[in-house]
């Protein structure tokens, strides 16, 4: 092949699981190596930007960008890689919808810094030192990027061509996306790829009946009956509001879905959809009873928006003026 596909993989604020997800391609890694030149892009700090900037625009055929936008550096790279890539893919839950680190949007920079650098009990910091974006050491200046108040998704800072959901995306789905890229069989811009048009419930092997919930249980409070729908048993499960494609893996070990594949098809707000699913199964005779049953649900925001707070209609908790 004269011109191998130039594939870029880049990570912003992420955990590394998306890279291990690529390793989970296992033997197919060798096929990928044969079909594409894998380009790893440096973290761009200071002068590094110049190198990426020096590349011709559109030099990278497809860039799989994972990680959310947490710092100024993450955002800068998002802009740069957009410019240098023909196709920019938000790869994995962080880039797609903010993922678990997006729960940081319930707080702000100040409260996060105070917790991490001042309040945690092992921290010994009597002078109240906090990290500075620029600091003058005896030998010279050292810089670190600015930590934003708000976690953003890739699409909130740049134009994204495709979205691959999942925390992390599952290997067979990644391979399907790579095959689609290699064959040029990509769907219309803006599509979610590497998933399907169903919900997690549609893929789940547990038996579902009509739900009539008198009491919601937290997962550690109940040993569920094997093979029976967890939601039917009163354990909140994000399956009905979540896009399929993972293979409903968490329920295979009797643990409820928490929604990492993002909103189900045609759902705008995953949390609102799950809340509506919860409300519709409450078996109450009076409004007071309904309020009591729903009132037992702890941490609704952290449960219904576990993976998608930054991308949701809520986006974040209100910032104090000047915060």
């Amino acid at each position, binding site marked *: 092949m004269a011109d191998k596909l130039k594939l870029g993989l880049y990570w912003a604020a992420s955990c*590394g699981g998306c890279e291990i997800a690529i390793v*989970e391609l296992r033997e197919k890694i060798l096929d990928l190596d044969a079909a594409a030149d894998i380009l790893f892009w440096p973290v761009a700090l200071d002068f590094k930007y110049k*190198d990426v900037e020096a590349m011709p625009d559109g030099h990278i055929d497809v860039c799989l960008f994972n990680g959310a936008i947490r710092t100024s550096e993450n955002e800068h790279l998002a802009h740069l890689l957009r410019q240098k890539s023909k196709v920019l893919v938000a790869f994995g839950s962080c880039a797609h919808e903010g993922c678990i*680190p997006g729960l940081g949007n319930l707080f702000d920079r100040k409260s996060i810094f105070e917790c*991490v650098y001042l309040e945690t*009990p092992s921290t010994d910091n009597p002078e109240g030192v906090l990290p500075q974006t620029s600091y003058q*050491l005896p030998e010279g200046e050292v810089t670190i990027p600015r930590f934003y108040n708000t976690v953003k998704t890739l699409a909130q800072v740049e134009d994204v061509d495709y979205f691959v959901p999942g925390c992390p995306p599952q290997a067979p789905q990644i391979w399907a996306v790579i095959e689609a890229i290699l064959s040029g069989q990509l769907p219309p811009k803006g599509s979610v790829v590497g998933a399907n048009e169903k919900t997690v419930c549609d893929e789940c092997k547990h038996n579902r009946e009509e739900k009539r919930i008198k009491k919601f249980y937290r997962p550690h409070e109940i040993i569920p009956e094997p093979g029976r729908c967890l939601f039917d048993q009163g354990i909140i499960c994000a399956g009905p509001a979540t896009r399929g494609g993972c293979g409903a893996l*968490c329920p295979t070990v009797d643990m409820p879905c928490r929604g990492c594949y993002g909103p189900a098809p045609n759902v705008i707000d995953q949390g609102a959809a799950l809340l509506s699913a919860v409300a519709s199964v409450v078996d109450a005779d009076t409004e007071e009873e309904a309020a009591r049953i729903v009132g037992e649900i702890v941490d609704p925001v952290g449960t219904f928006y576990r993976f998608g707070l930054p991308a949701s209609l809520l986006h974040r908790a209100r910032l104090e003026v000047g915060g």
Partner: protein
Amino acid sequence: MQKISIDPITRLEGHGRIDIFLDEEGNVANAYLVIPELRGFEKFAEGRPVEELPRITPRICGVCPEAHHMASAKACDAVYHVEVPSTGKKLRELLYSAFYVADHTVHFYILAAPDFVLGPDAPPAERNILGLIHRVGLEIGSKVISSRGKAMDIVGMLGGKTIHPVGAIPGGVSKAINEEERAQIEAIGHELVEFGQFNLQLFHDVVLANKTYLDMILSDTFTTPMYYMGLVDENNKVNFYDGLVRVVDPEGNEFVKYAPEEYLDVIAERVEPWTYLKFPYLKKVGWKGFVTGKDSGVYQATPLSRLNAADGMATPRAQEAYEGFYETMGGKPVHGTLATHWARLIELLYAAERLVELATDPEITDPHVRNIPTEMPDEGVGIVEAPRGTLTHHYTTDEKGIVQKCNLIVGTTNNYAPISISVKKAAQALIKKGQVISEGILNRVEMAFRSYDPCFGCATHTLPGQMPLEVVIWDAEGNEVQRISQNL
């Protein structure tokens, strides 16, 4: 003063960069390992139901999510004062052992081995896992990929997902295994023990038989005596899942042995304004700056430190390898940073042997794997050995089990000061007045911290196995005088 930046694509909570400052003579004045990223898990854990933290905290690290999953579940057990049934504990340890085999395989073959098998001066384009496979043959390459994959299959079987598993829950695990699953796990376990022995043989043949590499491992450039930390069982043998944390001093004498809930008596963390990551140190010795030795509270938590802090390995083949290790290296403790790779392979063999022990345990298929918590939740600490160091989760909740405070001391964080010191030492030894900084020298600096398998580096190495680096040198007026890059 000149400033050299080595800009790796690295990760703990993100990325990393080494800034090296040269003095007027062109020698290294100082070196800083800067971590330019933070995500703030300790803060947004607040307000979450504590039983969800085993599913939330693994996103700190997708390379070792199993470690966070287990430390978090153990902290939850402590918060709820719930005893995990014996089989529940064993199933957690079984998953964890399989994970260790997979993770140590990734590190050795994808990160470390290219340096040794292909050589630190090999062209960067070849010095990676694919180059390694070309050199050692597709058969060995396939064996590595397949062994890692089978170990991950066990993680998936017990945890639902191979990355970010979900099976551990306060009071135990969510699902028991049946005889069919057990037999499958046992069969994989035997293959992994064989794989563990194969790795050590390869290390002997390729690395130890080559005098250049052996000299490098034993050289002063890569030798840094300090305190060593590791989890040990009741016989002071290495354990990854449970036990007490033991710390030995640079001479190898026990300094302290503590239970998880006592960690605040032993560990403190320092904040520096030029980086987002904190520096843990031994509280009773104190923070004395970036220096090692008996008077400095700097300690390391790595495969090497676990072997140094223990009296041996709890399985026979790993014990034999452990004895051979100290014999070759000239006694305990071993201070050579690069010996960490060898220690990692000994641990891999132990994990595989332990996996078989657990898979053949008569109670492993017992259906009683969970107890439902009944006590009032309040506070708890959970500790496991993550592959990259002792991992501590500490939660305080209200009476409903909603998290009020969360403190995390993550594997690699333990090693932040030692890695910084090792990097500076390597830079000082390798970058000298008038000497042209070749790519191979940069790689040797990088090797100093690669041996720690810092989590802010590992995932990024996945495919090419070689991190992109760039060095730019400025003169005193800030003009660029030289630029060297690799793998960009």
